[in-house]
C-alpha cells in the first residue's frame, strides 16, 4: 500500500544518510556557516521561481491563495495551542511558542515535496510558492498573541513593563516577524523574479533554477538536516511521550486542513493540493525559532526545536509527503 518508491529520490535519501551518519556517531560535520549559506541560496532560488511564475498568472487567481495562506497561518497554531494545553497539559508559554512553529512552514519540506512530485512528473500550481512565502509570518503574530494572553492568564508581566527594553514591546516584536531574514529573502527574491527583465533573469537561472543546480544543493542541505534531526533524538526522553506524539499527529491534522483548503477552496490540481497539505503540515525552523527565542523567552527552546527539527521534519519527509500525495489523489479519485 505505502509506496516506497517516493523515498528513492536523492533529497530523501540524503536526508536519511545524514540521519544515519549521526546515529552511527560518524564524525561527519558541516563546517560552520555552510548550511546557513545553503539556506540563503535555497530561499533566494525558491523566491525567484515563485516570482517568475507569479508574473505569468493573473492576479485574481493568486488572490485566493493569499487569503488561504493567511487563514492557514492563523488557524493551525490556534488548533495546535488547543491540543497542547487541553489534551497535553503543556505549559501555556511553551504551548504558545510551539504552536507558532506549526502555523508557519518549512521551506525544506516544501522543496522535498516538489522534488517528490517532479520525480513522478506531477505538475503543481505555482501559487503554492506564494503561499509558502506568505505563511512564514502570520503564525509568529499568533504566537505573540498567544504568549501575551498566556502571560496575562499566568499573572506574569512579561516584556512590556520593562523600561529598559523597548524591543520587548508588541510593535517591535511584530516588526521582527516581517523583517526576519528568511522572510525578507523570500519576498525580496519573489519581487525580483517578478520585475526583473526576463532576458536578465535568464542569465542567473543556471545558478538558481531547478534545471540548474538547485536540486543538487537541496540534497546537500537535506544531508545536513538529517544530521540535525538525528541529534535531537536524544532529547525525546526529555520532552516526553506526549510531545513526540504531538509532533507526528499535528502534521496530520494540518495536512487534512491543507488538503481541504487546496482541493475544495482553491480548486488546485493533485500536485498543488499536495503542496498545500505539506505547507499546513510542516513546522518552521527558520523564521519562527529566533522570533520565539526573542519574544517568548519563558518557553523552553528544546521543546520547539526538537519537535520541529527532530520529529515533524523527518515525519513529513519520510512518511508525510507520500501520504499527503496519496490522499490528494484519492480526493481526485
Amino acid at each position: 500500500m505505502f509506496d516506497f518508491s517516493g523515498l528513492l529520490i536523492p533529497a530523501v535519501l540524503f536526508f536519511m544518510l545524514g540521519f544515519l551518519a549521526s546515529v552511527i556517531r560518524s564524525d561527519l560535520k558541516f563546517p560552520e556557516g555552510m548550511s546557513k549559506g545553503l539556506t540563503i541560496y535555497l530561499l533566494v532560488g525558491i523566491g525567484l521561481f515563485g516570482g517568475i511564475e507569479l508574473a505569468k498568472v493573473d492576479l485574481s487567481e493568486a488572490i485566493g491563495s493569499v487569503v488561504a495562506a493567511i487563514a492557514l497561518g492563523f488557524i493551525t497554531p490556534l488548533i495546535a495551542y488547543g491540543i497542547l494545553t487541553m489534551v497535553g497539559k503543556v505549559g501555556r508559554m511553551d504551548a504558545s511558542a510551539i504552536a507558532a512553529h506549526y502555523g508557519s512552514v518549512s521551506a525544506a519540506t516544501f522543496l522535498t515535496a516538489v522534488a517528490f512530485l517532479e520525480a513522478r512528473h506531477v505538475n503543481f500550481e505555482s501559487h503554492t510558492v506564494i503561499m509558502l512565502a506568505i505563511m512564514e509570518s502570520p503564525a509568529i503574530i499568533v504566537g505573540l498573541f498567544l504568549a501575551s494572553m498566556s502571560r496575562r492568564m499566568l499573572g506574569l508581566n512579561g516584556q512590556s513593563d520593562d523600561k529598559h527594553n523597548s524591543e520587548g514591546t508588541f510593535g517591535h516584536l511584530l516588526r521582527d516577524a516581517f523583517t526576519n531574514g528568511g522572510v525578507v529573502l523570500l519576498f525580496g527574491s519573489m519581487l525580483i523574479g517578478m520585475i526583473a527583465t526576463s532576458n536578465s533573469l535568464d542569465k542567473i537561472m543556471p545558478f538558481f533554477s531547478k534545471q540548474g543546480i538547485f536540486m543538487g544543493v537541496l540534497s546537500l542541505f537535506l544531508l545536513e538536516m538529517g544530521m540535525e534531526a538525528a541529534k535531537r533524538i536524544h532529547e525525546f526522553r526529555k520532552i516526553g511521550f506526549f510531545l513526540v506524539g504531538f509532533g507526528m499527529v499535528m502534521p496530520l491534522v494540518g495536512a487534512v486542513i491543507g488538503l481541504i483548503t487546496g482541493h475544495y477552496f482553491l480548486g488546485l490540481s493533485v500536485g498543488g493540493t499536495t503542496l498545500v497539505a505539506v505547507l499546513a503540515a510542516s513546522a518552521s525552523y527558520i523564521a519562527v525559532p529566533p522570533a520565539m527565542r526573542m519574544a517568548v523567552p519563558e518557553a523552553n527552546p528544546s521543546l520547539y526545536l526538537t519537535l520541529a527539527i527532530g520529529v515533524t521534519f523527518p515525519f513529513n519527509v519520510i512518511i508525510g509527503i507520500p501520504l499527503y500525495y496519496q490522499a490528494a489523489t484519492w480526493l481526485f479519485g
Partner: protein
Amino acid sequence: MELYAKKVVHIVASADIESRLVKIAQEYNRGGYTIYPARGGGDLGVQSGMLDVDSNIAFMMVVSEKDLDQILQALDRMIKRGYQMIAYVLDAQVLRREKFGVKPS
C-alpha cells in the same frame, strides 16, 4: 608598560539573542563589544553550530569597574525574563586606558 585594571565580561548564549546583547553594549559600554562564533553543550543539549537556531555566540565586553554592576544587572534582568545564558567576569589589565572610558551621559 603601564596597565590599567578593567573587567572583562564574557557571555555565552544563543546567537538568536545577539541583538539584545548589542543593545546592552550600546547602552552601558559605549558600543564596545566583541563577538566570537561558538557552539557547545549544556542543560539545553548540544548546540552544533550548523543551523542558525543551533549556534551560540560568545559576547565579550571590556568594561570599567564602575560600569560593571549595571551591565550585570541588565544581564540579570534578561535571565530573569527567561533568556538562557552563562556569564562570567574576569579581572584584566588593559593597555590604552582611553579606549575604555566612561560612557557618555
